[in-house]
């Protein structure tokens, strides 16, 4: 699941990145779009469509990404995210972005080209306009000159202008005509006037065509060499000319092909007329000539061409040296370097004549601007090109490549993430599979262990039984020894198997704790007596101390608790050669006060040997770290149990694996001490089952202290359900015969004295502790009330024999009823005991102290009668008989044998038994009024099972009860029982919790196992029959 979250996170991040990309891209495109709109209304078709495309694409992308997002949630729900989907996504993502970047590239480069074109157009237009303007200015001026001539030459007689005047005037006004290189005036001369004209002028009219055919260099030019004009209808010889073109004086303009066309057109139209460009005379440069006609009089603007021809006086021509002029013009403008300008005469569309500019290869971009020089006949245009080729669209390239890189990076990240996730998922699956296998193997192992141990136990019982029987036969000593050894080994084996079985049960989770009432003190007494032999053999002192705060009766699993204690004590005994083993039981709540006690002196221990500080052993417990979380109002009782020994301790390096099953300190340990190393592991599991914790502290050569906590229930607050199972428990014997007696314990060691006090107090005896002889004497002599007994620690006795003798002497002198003397001895066989043999009324009480033994010793010594104390093993049986005698009981079971046996058992207890084999019979028999006191019903029966039968019986009862309640039926008819309810107990072979619950649910009052167990039967039956 965590993986999916990571994955989801990845997707989200991806989505975010994606959005970012899209946003950036859209911003860029929007900018373009807006720029395009404002800059030029005629945004190119490509650009517009590009924008449109982009928007569509953007829409698609965003909807797609939304889909991805959406699908992510869907897929995550189904958990199985197809990897193939991702595999397909990556190439499509890349392809998509390649396409996108291509589109972006196209858009950007077209934008750039567009911009370039616009720049070119604007530059070209600007140049064209300027050229046109200047041209127009020049033209206007030429027109002005024509008017000047018409006024001063033709209007005055004689003429006010001669060649020199004109030349000077023209020269001085040349600045007004920036485009003209020169002006000249040709007068109209008819053939009839030629002679007179030539005479008057002093030169003959010359023709021009030869000149045109053989262009000559300027320097060689000599007008005198020109032929005189042939006879024509009329002539147009130049009479005035600016100095610069003075060579054209006397040349007949009509003799030139171009000029004559021009002249004729000019006089016809009355406007300025341009020639097509041609090589100028003398300068040999390309130029055009503008011609204006000069009329005799002012003509109306709508004059016909004929009138105009007739009124013509002469022709004014201006030479426009286009090439140089355009050059000059362009030089005035900025960025002349960047563009190439061509000026063309396109009057003849198919053969445009270049007027200016080189004819470079016209590839690439070109802008054409039309020029209007005022002559409608002639068309001119300006063509502009950039000098350089268009630069590479670096911005577009970098942008698209950048986007591509980002996209592929994102794709890579995604791919890597998905791959990683897939890998991790695979690994996880593999692990899960392995885990499952391992768990299955573990369960199988546990089951195998359980089965095998169980299977071994059965034959082992046979072996042990046979050995037992063999021991009863006639055997010599050796044989007996063999048999004993065999039996001991067998018992050890069975114990081992039991342990293994426990471990297996715990591991497979099958172990359930009992919930019965038990006496903790009795359990510990039991354990003490179990180990007393061993401890006495070793000379190790064994003691148990239980705090007064711990309640008498607890509810829990005594067997398992005992097992833990036995495990811990067994270990302690095994590894302790001298000193003591002390078991203390406290409430967890008391721990603080314990700490205070122990803090007083670390040497203050039971046997005087130093011990490991037990506080260390519970340092890690959760119970203490979260003190506040304990429930003060619940009836749970938290016990903390410590087992302290002065053994050899656990080596530091082995301490970490103490609770690991089958782990022992080292191989040598198992050889010297035996055991499987499973006990502590089981203990830990059991403690965990008791909702407790276990810990230890161990100092090599000093000893170990194991501490565990366990949670039990207080027996006072819980219901009677737990009515003591251990009815024959030892604790019941604790007699009241010693109540009110007083005792004095003489022991210098507080801890040991406390233990002694605890045990003696259990018998109801008031205890005082003294540490010295003297003190004891004074208390006995002075004390307010007489002491019934004095218990002396053997150590005190042995150490100071003189003191004891003195004490005994003094004791005799006291008149107030001599107290009995007891010696608390660690070992019966110890030498000290021999020293006391002579002493009168001295009884030795062997340690470990425990209530039963203490009581027995005291009884023996004090002569208190042991009355009514006999343990009645027949208690349940006898009680059952009391309960059941004369009762009428119905047994329902489909199994004849079971029926017979159950009936036999109940009859044995004196019950009056009726049997039924089917559920329906039971219902008939159990219809009120009831004749039966109780019914034992089998659960699993054909036709109608016990649950169903009970349910029906309860329904009938309910019905009748209601009817009695409402007065429909008389109570008398039902034996004056207004609320009939027959006790129905289930008989079942499987005593599972679920079955019990089912029993209660369908109205049964309890259950007994089949076949009957006297104790359980008694427990159940006693709830009804009192």
């Amino acid at each position, binding site marked *: 699941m965590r993986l999916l979250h990571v994955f989801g996170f990845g997707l989200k991040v991806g989505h975010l990145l994606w959005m970012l990309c899209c946003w950036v891209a859209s911003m860029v495109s929007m900018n373009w779009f807006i720029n395009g709109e404002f800059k030029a209304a005629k945004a190119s078709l490509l650009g517009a469509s590009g924008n449109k495309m982009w928007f569509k694409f953007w829409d698609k992308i965003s909807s797609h990404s939304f889909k991805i997002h959406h699908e992510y949630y869907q897929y995550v729900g189904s958990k199985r995210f197809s990897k193939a989907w991702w595999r397909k996504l990556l190439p499509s993502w890349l392809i998509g972005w390649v396409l996108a970047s291509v589109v972006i590239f196209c858009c950007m480069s077209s934008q750039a080209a567009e911009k370039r074109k616009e720049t070119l157009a604007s530059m070209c237009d600007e140049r064209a306009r300027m050229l046109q303007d200047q041209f127009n200015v020049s033209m206007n001026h030429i027109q002005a000159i024509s008017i000047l001539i018409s006024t001063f030459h033709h209007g005055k007689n004689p003429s006010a202008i001669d060649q020199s005047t004109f030349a000077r005037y023209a020269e001085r006004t040349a600045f007004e005509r920036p485009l003209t290189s020169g002006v000249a005036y040709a007068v109209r001369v008819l053939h009839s006037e030629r002679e007179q004209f030539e005479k008057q002028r002093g030169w003959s009219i010359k023709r021009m065509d030869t000149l045109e055919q053989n262009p000559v260099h300027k320097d060689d030019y000599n007008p005198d060499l020109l032929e005189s004009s042939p006879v024509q209808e009329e002539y147009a010889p130049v009479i005035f000319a600016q100095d610069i073109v003075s060579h054209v004086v006397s040349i007949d303009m009509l003799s030139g092909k171009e000029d004559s066309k021009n002249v004729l057109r000019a006089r016809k139209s009355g406007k300025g007329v341009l020639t097509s460009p041609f090589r100028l005379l003398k300068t040999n440069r390309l130029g055009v000539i503008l011609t204006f006609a000069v009329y005799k009089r002012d003509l109306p603007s709508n004059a016909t061409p004929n009138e105009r021809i007739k009124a013509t006086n002469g022709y004014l021509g201006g030479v426009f040296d286009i090439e140089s002029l355009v050059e000059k013009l362009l030089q005035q403008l900025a960025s002349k370097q960047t563009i190439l300008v061509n000026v063309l005469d396109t009057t003849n569309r198919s053969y445009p004549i270049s007027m200016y500019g080189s004819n470079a290869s016209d590839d690439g971009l070109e802008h054409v601007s039309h020029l209007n020089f005022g002559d409608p006949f002639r068309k001119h245009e300006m063509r502009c090109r950039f000098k350089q080729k268009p630069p590479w669209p670096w911005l577009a390239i970098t942008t698209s490549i950048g986007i591509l890189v980002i996209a592929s990076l994102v794709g890579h990240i995604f791919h890597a993430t998905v791959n990683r996730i897939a890998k991790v998922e695979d690994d996880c699956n593999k692990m899960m599979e392995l885990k499952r296998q391992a768990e299955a193997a573990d369960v199988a192992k546990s089951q195998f262990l359980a089965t095998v141990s169980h299977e071994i136990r*059965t034959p082992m*019982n*046979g072996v*042990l*039984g*046979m050995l*037992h*029987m063999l021991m009863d036969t006639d055997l010599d000593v050796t044989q007996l020894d063999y048999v004993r050894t065999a039996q001991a080994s067998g018992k050890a084996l069975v114990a081992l198997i039991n342990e293994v079985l426990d471990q297996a049960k715990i591991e497979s989770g099958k172990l359930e704790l009992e919930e019965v009432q038990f006496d903790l003190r009795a359990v510990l007494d039991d354990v003490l007596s179990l180990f007393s032999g061993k401890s006495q053999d070793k000379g190790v002192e064994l003691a148990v101390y239980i705090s007064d705060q711990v309640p008498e009766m607890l509810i829990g699993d005594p067997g398992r608790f005992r097992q833990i204690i036995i495990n811990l004590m067994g270990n302690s005994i095994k590894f302790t050669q001298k000193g003591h083993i002390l078991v203390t039981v406290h409430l967890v709540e008391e721990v603080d006060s314990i700490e205070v006690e122990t803090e007083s002196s670390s040497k203050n221990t039971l046997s005087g040997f130093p011990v490991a500080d037990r506080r260390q052993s519970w340092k890690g417990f959760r119970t203490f770290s979260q003190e506040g979380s304990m429930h003060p109002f619940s009836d749970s009782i938290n016990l903390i149990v410590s087992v302290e020994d002065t053994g050899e301790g656990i080596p530091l390096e082995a301490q970490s694996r103490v609770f690991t099953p089958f782990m022992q300190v080292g191989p040598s340990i198992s050889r010297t001490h035996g055991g499987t190393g499973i006990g502590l592991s089981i203990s830990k599991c059991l403690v965990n089952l008791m909702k407790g914790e276990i810990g230890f502290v161990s100092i090599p050569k000093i000893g170990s202290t194991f501490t565990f906590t366990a949670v039990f229930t207080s027996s006072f607050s819980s219901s009677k359900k737990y009515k003591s199972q251990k009815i024959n428990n030892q604790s019941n014997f604790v007699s009241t015969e010693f109540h009110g007696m007083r005792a004095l314990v003489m022991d210098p060691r507080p801890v040991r004295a406390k233990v002694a006090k605890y045990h003696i107090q259990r018998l109801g005896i008031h205890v005082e502790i003294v540490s010295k002889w003297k003190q004891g004497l004074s208390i006995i002599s002075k004390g307010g009330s007489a002491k019934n007994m004095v218990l002396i620690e053997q150590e005190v006795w042995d150490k100071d024999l003189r003191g004891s003798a003195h004490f005994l002497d003094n004791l005799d002198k006291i008149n107030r009823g001599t107290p009995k003397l007891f010696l608390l001895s660690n070992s019966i066989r110890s030498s000290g005991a021999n020293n006391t043999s002579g002493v009168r009324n001295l009884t030795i009480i062997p340690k470990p102290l425990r209530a039963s033994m203490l009581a027995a010793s005291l009884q023996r010594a004090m002569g208190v009668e042991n009355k009514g104390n006999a343990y009645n093993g027949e208690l349940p049986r006898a009680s059952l008989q009391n309960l059941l005698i004369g009762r009428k009981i119905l047994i329902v*079971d*489909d*199994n*004849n*044998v*079971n029926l*017979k*046996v*159950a009936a*036999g*058992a109940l*009859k*044995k207890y004196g019950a009056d038994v009726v049997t039924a084999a089917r559920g329906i019979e039971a219902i008939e028999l159990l219809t009120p009024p009831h004749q039966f006191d109780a019914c034992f019903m*089998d659960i*699993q029966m*054909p036709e109608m099972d016990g649950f169903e039968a009970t349910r029906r019986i309860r329904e009938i009862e309910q019905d009748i009860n209601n009817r009695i309640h409402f007065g429909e039926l008389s109570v008398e008819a039902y034996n004056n029982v207004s609320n009939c309810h027959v006790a129905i107990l289930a008989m079942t*072979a499987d005593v599972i919790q679920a079955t019990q619950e089912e029993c209660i649910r369908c109205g049964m009052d309890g259950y007994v196992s*089949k*076949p*009957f167990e006297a104790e359980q039967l008694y427990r159940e039956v006693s709830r009804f029959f009192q």
Partner: protein
Amino acid sequence: MEVGQMQRRLVDYTKTLFMEGFLDAQFLQLQQLQDENNPDFVVEVVSLFFDDSEKLLNNLSMALDQPNVDFKKVDAHVHQLKGSSSSIGAQRVKNACIAFRNFCEEQNIDATLRCLQQVKHEYYLVKNKLETLLRLEQQIVAAGGSIPMIDMGF
């Protein structure tokens, strides 16, 4: 045969039955239920068990012979047998029945057939043993002795 000797044999024999796991504590309880009021209790119960079991075993054989085995029915029969056997303390029959029921749940015909053989085998064994035991007891009673109570204190 002398009564005392017979009694010892009875005790020994009973003990072997317990050792070999044929019988368990329930049989002891059964014996304890027998008293003056009910002198033939054990015999009655045991013979009831024999009759019942034979019937059940027959039924089982028939049920398992069917082409379509009704496992529910088989299970019910085995349950009955288990109940009776545990009532008289025929431990091994009971254990065989437990295994039988497990296979019934699995609906494993082969295994159930094997189990039937096993149950039959165990049943005949215990029947044999019980018959011998009861014969011994009868002989003792006929010889005028009393049946010794056995305390299985191990």
